[in-house]
């Protein structure tokens, strides 16, 4: 049963569009799946390999802009962005890896944070090439109905899940975790840490970029503030994984569900306005204090109070 759980969930999700749900609910589901992909991608680098990145907006934005610019300059379908961004994002990951992966721990995190911001500022200033703050708009989206978008992102998410599972059970996975646990020990056990960290970064970057390219097609409009922001993308990505559980298969998915719903709920609360960010901050602090391995990692801990009650009664 447990082994087939991913398959059952996947099959269940395939049937969702048949249920004739409202367009708003479909939108939320698509966002959940997209964030799952970004979360899973971040998890490869941050969760398994232990290189915490605060700049995944760079990858997301590059993916989105790859799709957008193909449409804007070459006038071909923005869907080409998905295959093309594999190439572009690999190249970008190699550059970022070359600059950042020689740094360790907090310094790596700070460098990625800076790179994310550099990408945003650059995109804002490329007025001729990328329209700057005006952003790029698709004149018409491929479908008005959400069904196909849902299926596409569902398959991307499913593919990502399977890919990560395969990677993590191979030599690559062992090497990633070994690097996370002790880089020097890993190095002396014959692991080329620089190389494998770069591989991890490339995988993570490409998958995040694909989510970005999908976002361009789905939303039909992007600008630097939407796809490159520090808070809305980079930090939210980290939160999705932290809430769900770093270095677990299901963590990013669970995190995406919680974060997307929470964002929707909190946003509709009356009277608090922009203070909803505060709520996220408080949640993050609570998570780090009480369930540092996230909901999936520490679910036993979370169930404990309920179990004890049962025994008592």
């Amino acid at each position, binding site marked *: 049963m447990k082994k087939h759980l991913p398959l059952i969930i996947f099959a269940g999700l395939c049937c969702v569009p048949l249920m004739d749900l409202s367009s708003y609910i479909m939108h939320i589901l698509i966002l959940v799946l997209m964030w799952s992909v970004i979360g899973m991608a971040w998890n490869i680098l941050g969760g398994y390999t232990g290189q915490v990145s605060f700049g995944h907006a760079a990858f997301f934005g590059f993916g989105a802009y790859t799709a957008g610019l193909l449409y804007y300059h070459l006038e071909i379908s923005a869907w080409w962005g998905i295959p093309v961004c594999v190439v572009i994002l690999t190249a970008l990951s190699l550059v970022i890896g070359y600059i950042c992966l020689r740094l360790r721990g907090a310094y790596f995190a700070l460098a990625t944070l800076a790179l994310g911001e550099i990408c945003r500022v650059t995109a804002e200033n490329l007025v001729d090439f990328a329209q700057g703050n005006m952003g790029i708009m698709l004149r018409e989206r491929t479908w008005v109905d959400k069904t196909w978008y849902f299926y596409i992102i569902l398959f991307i998410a499913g593919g990502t899940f399977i890919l990560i599972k395969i990677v993590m*059970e*191979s*030599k690559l996975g*062992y*090497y990633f*975790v*070994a690097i996370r*646990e*002790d880089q*020097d*020990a*890993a*190095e*002396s*056990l*014959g*692991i*080329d*840490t620089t190389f494998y960290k770069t591989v991890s970064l490339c995988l993570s970057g490409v998958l995040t970029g694909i989510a970005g390219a999908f976002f361009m097609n789905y939303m039909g409009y992007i600008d630097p503030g939407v796809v490159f922001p520090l808070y809305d993308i980079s930090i939210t990505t980290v939160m999705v994984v932290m809430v769900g559980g770093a270095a677990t298969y299901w963590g990013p998915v669970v995190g995406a569900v919680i974060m997307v719903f929470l964002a929707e709920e909190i946003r509709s609360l009356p009277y608090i306005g922009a203070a909803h960010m505060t709520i996220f901050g408080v949640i993050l602090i609570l998570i780090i204090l009480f369930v540092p391995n996230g909901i999936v990692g520490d679910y036993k801990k979370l169930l404990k109070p309920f179990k004890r009650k049962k025994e008592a009664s």
Partner: protein
Amino acid sequence: MSLIEVKDVTMRFGGLSAVADVSFVLNKGEILGLIGPNGAGKTTLFNVINGFYRPTKGDVFLNGKRVSNLRPHVLCKLGVARTFQVVRPLQRMSTLDNVVASAFIRTKTKAEAEKLSLEVLQFTGLSDDINVLSKGLPLGKRKRLEIARALATQPEIILLDEAFAGLNPTEINEQIEIVQKIRTERGITILIIEHHMKVIMAVSDRIVVLNYGQKIAEGTPSEIGHNPVVIEAYLGEEHSA
């Protein structure tokens, strides 16, 4: 035949020479002990041989090939494995996974790597602990896990950095047995740092003594035990035989 040759190696950190003009040879099939007071430069020398540091001066040769500019993972591929003084297991991985991760260097599939790892864990007497998270192991077993990990890379040479420190007498005897089996059953050459004189005298064929980064003596255990310079610098009177 010399497997590793350390030639005039100097390692300077700022103004401090941690190792100064040290030369010695590690012959194939031998157990060479490296002793000296704290801060004598033993671990620094390991880090140079292992590729963590590039020597300020001098060179290290492996099978006649200069290796002093190579990184640790390359040296590991060439057959030099090491353990750490302060044990560094991959904490959130099980004992088995720890060894599997290092077994991958010379195996292709996961099945092969697991087979090799189980065999190595049996060899080091850790078969009962394969599913324990390595941070949960007691120190004695963690020290053996370090050795198991090194063995899983199928090395030609193992550098053991204080593999006996902090063990109780029973564990020490087990560990001595393992070290001797590494040579007799696997034909692996061993370079060992140790403070425990009983151990070092019992296992080594030859001993090199460092003090303040310099080599002050080299010879068989009994020669070293009688050497007045070594007694003065390190052993003290009660060990002089």
